[in-house]
């Protein structure tokens, strides 16, 4: 840095959060400005603060002065850069940005001069004036920002630089507004020029060779060296930048988040109120007296909460949960703080601290000064009520959803760069389609070759390089799944609020990491389909019993439930219904609640990649001794037989075995995911392994722990989440075991959710003896329900009928029963489409006979829309022949996506038997290594990231499901069968481990033509 050069502060600089304009990350801009010896840098994204927190973090790390501001173009074309001088100015500016954003659609803003009046206190304004700017505009600005407005001269080596400077000088003299130098910076280095051109082309929805003069003529809009600036600008204009920077003293560190206060009744402190509510809750939970262990835990937690002043946070969550309970919306908390004794007492979670050996170390650590984390799941069909309650209680100015930054990934950046380079859309499609599964960047050149593009041709080379630069750029802000930020004062003075794409939702401009960094409180209000299903099932049971039956009425630790789980009879059960979970259950054989906690956590990429599954199974089956290298390690790993399974355990190991502080351990985990991508975790690795060997642990053990931390970094499952999930596993398994009809009703009314289709759920329930009846206008409600004297028969609802609207369904249910089709059409106010759908689904059987007759009858029925139609002549129905079983089957699948008739494969069984295919049931009785042939409808295709190219197929026949393993070499050879077949024959070898059976494919045969017109569907690669 040369001290003789004039100092400079860049006051007009956009980052890539000015979407499709800025071509550098905020961090890059800050680092470059520091390198060039700038005195300060303003980040002035267009009507946005979205990049500020990142810039702030980077600036703080290198000791650079950051100025917060924004660039705004008013509706009349006046372009201003507004800078915050202090906290008040920041708040005012944030409110202006919010105003502009809330007045326009997502992604746009609208501000007028009127919006800025009477000036924005504590903010400075730089006017990016054109050469022919009018003196009137200058006078307006001088009036709105007295002594706080400048005219910016931005020199980019255009041919009219000198004339423009002269014109602006004249304007300055006439108006008294001083001149200042600025850069309109769009990139941190000149080398981003190509990317900036690409962004311009994308913004204008064209390609770089067609975008013409909309491109910047050169690369001057970068951070330029002070030497160059000294040559380009008069010295007094450079000096003015320093004077302005001097006037801006605000830092994001000054933001203070305050919890909302209305969650505490008047006259009480948050601590008093929390204590009172916890005591009341404990009284309800433990009628027979609070166990000593729980009492001690509560006191410990309350002390921690008081120390960190987190009472208001817990009370805010409590308030939301209380609302849900009053509305009878099922909910359950999870997350590090959720499974505390305090949360149990407050009803935020149902996981009883007296019954489990859960850890609370990760609960809140004093060292990590970050807010506690509680996620609350609600019934997915009713979460909107909770969201509207929050908006209603705190107002739109005080509550908004967190943003999620949608960024460019490999595929999307390739797609957009390709488009900007004018590459044929077909080529781009070909390339990105072929990338669908193999999302590895190193293989990109190969992928290019595979679709006939030469990776060394100039255009393709540029494509690759630019796509790599664009990857990781933010593209737009979307809403977080449910993270609410609620503040005591106006939230829009803390962070700008803008409209989300979804009606009635608003989001702040910061994402989860941003608010973490600034210590803002977030409550996650999430949606969970299984809670809906459980609520519906419980309603059904209550109906049958004639009294309220709730989750707390379900007996715990029922051996019959565990027996069912041990046989992997878990279709429909929360979490443990997937193929991978089902393969684990007979090996693990859960016998108590804690086993379920382990089961939930163990079938995850983290433990699988860390190679923890098999050691745990061997130890559990007694095939391998359980040993610990030290007592300290034993205390951490005892409950999981010496094998770390939960994220918390791995972190704790770093503490007890390598001497990390809990804060360091958590930092290690967080960093691991990021560093793993970038490479270079060297020093932490040394610290961990050195720490462990230094404490007398074997190097092998230390290395293994390191690898496990690595695996857990991205995919680890915390015990606190697993415990909450395990409870829902148990509840749903109990329902399946003891109340299968009510459970089926719950699942069907909560669709879509889970791993299985309605068809598979119905088949499974019928195999378990549940009677299911088809939808019928005379008997069905809109939703599926229980009927019969004992409420033990499932009547499918009209909601399962494709093409029938919910309102029409409700009207039918209200007007039942009907005399005939005409009566139905008239009283339920149906249109032609509704009637056709009902007839096709066979739901008119009681009124009009079989499907063909029903179709004939409804085709002439009077409908609302044609009022002018003459009353139909009473025509006699012709004798239409009854449809055959095959035709009914086709119609069932086409209209309901399931059948209550025989399974399609029953009809094909003879033909399959001729080809020597056996049923799934017969397969299950075969021995290990048997050669076997099995055929079925493909219901699921999966390609787990942990299985190195193996594809898992699930086949369904009339006796059940078969899991098929297809190895990569066979996938390559029989791509078409793997991807395309709906009815697939598999010739292979049986692999048996206890009750777990897989068919390893050797050859695949596509029998789809046998299905004829039957439409089936598969859930693929989700």
């Amino acid at each position, binding site marked *: 840095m040369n001290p003789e050069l004039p100092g400079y502060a860049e006051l007009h600089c956009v980052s890539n959060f000015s979407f499709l304009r800025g071509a550098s990350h905020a961090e890059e801009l800050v680092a470059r400005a520091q390198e060039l010896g700038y005195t300060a840098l303003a980040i002035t994204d267009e009507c946005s603060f979205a990049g500020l927190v990142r810039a702030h973090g980077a600036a703080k790390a290198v000791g650079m002065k950051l100025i917060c501001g924004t660039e705004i173009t008013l509706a009349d074309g006046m372009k201003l850069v507004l800078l915050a001088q202090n906290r008040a100015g920041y708040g005012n500016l944030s409110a202006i940005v919010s105003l502009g954003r809330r007045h326009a659609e997502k992604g746009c803003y609208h501000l007028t001069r009127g919006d800025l009046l009477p000036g924005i206190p504590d903010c400075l304004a730089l006017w990016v004036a054109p050469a022919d700017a009018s003196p009137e505009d200058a006078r307006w600005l001088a009036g709105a920002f007295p002594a706080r407005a400048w005219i910016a001269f931005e020199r980019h080596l255009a041919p009219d630089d000198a004339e423009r400077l002269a014109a602006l000088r004249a304007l300055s003299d006439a108006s008294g507004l001083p001149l200042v130098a600025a850069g309109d910076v769009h990139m941190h280095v000149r080398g981003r*020029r190509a990317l900036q051109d690409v962004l311009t082309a994308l913004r204008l929805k064209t390609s*770089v060779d067609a975008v013409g003069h909309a491109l910047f003529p050169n690369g001057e809009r970068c951070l330029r060296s002070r030497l160059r600036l000294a040559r380009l600008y008069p010295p007094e204009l450079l000096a003015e930048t320093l004077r302005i920077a001097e006037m801006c003293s605000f830092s994001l560190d000054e933001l203070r988040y305050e919890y909302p206060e209305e969650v505490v009744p008047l006259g009480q402190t948050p601590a008093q109120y929390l204590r009172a509510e916890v005591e009341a809750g404990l009284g309800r939970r433990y009628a027979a007296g609070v166990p000593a262990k729980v009492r001690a835990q509560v006191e410990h937690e309350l002390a921690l909460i008081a120390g960190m002043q987190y009472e208001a946070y817990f009370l805010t969550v409590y308030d939301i949960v209380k609302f849900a309970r009053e509305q009878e919306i099922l909910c359950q908390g999870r997350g590090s703080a959720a499974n505390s004794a305090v949360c149990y007492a407050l009803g935020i979670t149902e996981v009883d601290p007296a019954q489990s050996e859960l850890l609370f170390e990760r609960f809140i650590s004093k060292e990590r000064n970050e807010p506690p984390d509680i996620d609350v799941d609600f019934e997915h069909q009713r979460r909107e009520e909770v969201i509207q309650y929050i908006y209603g209680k705190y107002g739109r100015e005080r509550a908004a959803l967190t943003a999620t930054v949608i960024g460019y990934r490999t595929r999307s950046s390739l797609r957009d760069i390709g488009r900007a380079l004018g590459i044929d859309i077909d080529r781009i499609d070909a390339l990105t389609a072929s990338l669908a599964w193999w999302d590895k960047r190193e293989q990109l050149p190969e992928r290019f070759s595979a679709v006939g593009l030469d990776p060394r041709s100039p255009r393709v080379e540029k494509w690759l390089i630019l796509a790599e630069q664009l990857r990781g750029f933010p593209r737009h802000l979307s809403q977080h799944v449910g993270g609410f930020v609620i503040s005591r004062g106006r939230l829009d003075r803390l962070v700008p609020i803008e409209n989300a794409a979804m009606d009635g939702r608003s989001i702040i401009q910061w994402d989860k990491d941003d608010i973490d960094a600034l210590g803002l409180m977030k409550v996650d209000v999430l949606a969970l389909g299984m809670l809906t299903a459980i609520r519906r099932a419980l309603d059904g049971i209550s109906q049958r019993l004639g009294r309220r039956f709730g989750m707390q009425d379900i007996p715990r630790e029922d051996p019959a439930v565990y027996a069912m789980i041990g046989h992997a009879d878990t279709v429909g059960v929360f979490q443990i219904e997937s193929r991978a979970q089902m393969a684990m259950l007979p090996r693990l054989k859960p016998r108590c609640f804690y086993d379920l906690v382990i089961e939930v956590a163990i079938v995850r990429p983290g433990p699988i990649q860390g190679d923890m599954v098999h050691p745990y199974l061997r130890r559990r089956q007694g095939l391998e001794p359980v040993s610990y290298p030290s007592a300290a390690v034993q205390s951490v790993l005892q409950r999981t037989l010496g094998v770390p399974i939960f994220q918390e355990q791995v972190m704790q190991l770093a503490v007890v075995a390598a001497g990390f502080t809990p804060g360091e351990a958590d930092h290690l985990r967080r960093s691991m995911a990021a560093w793993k991508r970038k490479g270079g975790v060297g020093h932490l690795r040394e610290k961990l392994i050195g720490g462990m060997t230094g404490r007398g642990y074997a190097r092998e053990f230390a290395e293994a722990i390191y690898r496990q931390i690595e695996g857990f970094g991205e995919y680890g499952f915390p015990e606190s989440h697993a415990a909450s999930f395990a409870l829902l596993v148990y509840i749903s398994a109990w329902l399946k075991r003891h109340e299968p009809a009510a459970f089926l009703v719950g699942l069907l009314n909560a669709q879509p959710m889970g791993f299985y289709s309605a068809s598979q759920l119905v088949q499974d329930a019928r195999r378990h003896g549940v009677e299911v009846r088809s939808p019928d206008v005379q008997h069905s409600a809109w939703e599926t329900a229980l009927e019969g004297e004992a409420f033990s028969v499932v009547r499918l609802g009209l909601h399962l009928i494709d093409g029938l609207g919910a309102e029409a369904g409700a009207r039918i249910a209200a007007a039942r029963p009907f005399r005939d089709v005409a009566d139905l059409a008239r009283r339920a106010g149906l249109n032609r489409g509704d009637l056709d759908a009902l007839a096709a689904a066979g739901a008119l059987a009681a009124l009009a006979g079989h499907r063909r007759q029903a179709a*004939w009858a409804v085709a002439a029925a009077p409908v609302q829309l044609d009022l002018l139609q003459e009353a139909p*002549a009473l025509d006699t129905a012709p004798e239409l022949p009854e449809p055959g079983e095959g035709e009914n089957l086709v119609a069932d699948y086409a209209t309901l996506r399931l059948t209550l008739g025989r399974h399609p494969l029953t009809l094909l069984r003879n033909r399959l038997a001729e080809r020597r295919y056996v049923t799934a049931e017969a397969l299950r009785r075969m021995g290990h290594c048997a050669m076997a042939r099995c055929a079925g409808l493909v219901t699921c295709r999966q390609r787990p990231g942990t299985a190195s190219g193996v594809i898992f197929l699930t086949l369904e026949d009339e006796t059940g499901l078969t899991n098929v393993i297809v190895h990569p070499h066979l996938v390559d050879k029989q791509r078409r069968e793997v991807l395309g077949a709906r009815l697939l024959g598999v010739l292979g070898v049986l692999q048996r481990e206890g009750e777990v059976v897989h068919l390893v494919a050797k050859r695949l045969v596509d029998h789809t033509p046998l299905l004829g017109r039957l439409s089936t569907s598969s859930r693929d690669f989700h």
Partner: protein
Amino acid sequence: MPSPSAVVEHGRVLLGDEAARRAGIEAGVGVAAAWALAPGVTLLARRRDQEEAALHSLACWAGSLTPRVSLAPQALLLEIGSCLRLFGGLEKLCEVAAEGIAAQGFCARLAVAPTPLGAGWLARQHTDARCVDVARLRAELDALPVSVLPARAAMALGRFGARTLGEVRSLPSAGLGQRIGVESLLLLARAYGEQPDPRADFVFPAQFSLPLQLPAAVENAAALLFAARRLTAALSGWLAARQAGVREAVLCLLHRCDETRVPLLFAEPTADSVRFERVLRERLDRLALAAPVEALSLEATQVSALAGRNRSLLDDGGGSPFGQEDIGVLFERLGARLGDGRVYRVAAHADHRPECATRRIGLFEKVPPGASPVPPRPLWLLDSPEALPEVDGRPYRRGPLQLLTGPERIESGWWDAGEHAGDVRRDYFVALSQDAAWLWIYRECAAGGWFLHGYFS
């Protein structure tokens, strides 16, 4: 045409070639799935305009079979009852038609029936039916699936369990009209010959000018012959229908930016496709293509009644779009004399690079919408910049140059590096020379060095 390939519309495959079908790419398959099934597949967007153009061209050609041709959606109706004897019977006529179509590289489904709608339905269902009487027609139609009817009606009929037209006709017709719409009943009646079904005749165009889009750019002239055959076949059909012959026609080869015109001259008016092909072959064999050909067009420029006198189309004053046909003829002659691409116009092009800021366009090409105003540029830009020496740190050209304005920095064009002008990085100045000439000079940003790029005066 690369293989496998398939035609796509609305993201779904409409039709695949043999290799595509073998890979599993069939009608209805999604685009992404098609790529997954055969990563090398070429997918072509369906072009309805080209389908129409092809049908139009075939209609012209069909003039050689019968003067009564009619266009139907995606089908061609030929009234052949009156010309059976001319061709020696139905079978013979069908053979001639099939061969003629195949020679143009098309694949057609033929059916013969007493009603136009019946013939259309039978052809679409690949029946190869040859019904010369109504009884035979009825039997053939009865077996057709209900899907030949409008989709809504077909769907409704499917629900009643009726699969074939025969089954439909056994349903009570009073109730049926109410249920599937009287329009469908009318269609049935027309197809079965129970209602008249008059069709509008195809009007052979007054002047023959037919374009043909090639599926892929063709780089060798001989390969054009096959494609051009479609055009000459259409021309001879058109001539036959008008009972006229052609003396001069122009085959136009369209390249990406310009075109090559190949005149075909005949000693006397002719409608003989064999002669067309012979002349065409001679011309194309000797032609060296300057650029790949993306489309063809054939225009009959001198047509006369076969027995009558010659008549130039240019004489009877149709008028060119410019309204100055004489200049057009002059340009054409000039172009023919001086060679392709040597007579052109200049149009502004939006590009920051001075050498790319103009573009040559064909004489009759439309000028692209005006580029936005640019800073002053010299009228005379050198083809290639002239390097200038530097003396005492100043650019020098017959004496030191005085820099008047600048620099204007231009950094742009990276995207076509290695293909076209490429990335330029220059600082431009207006300079005054010792002899009082205003020059436009620049300095290379990266490598340094001065260059003269143009003159203002």
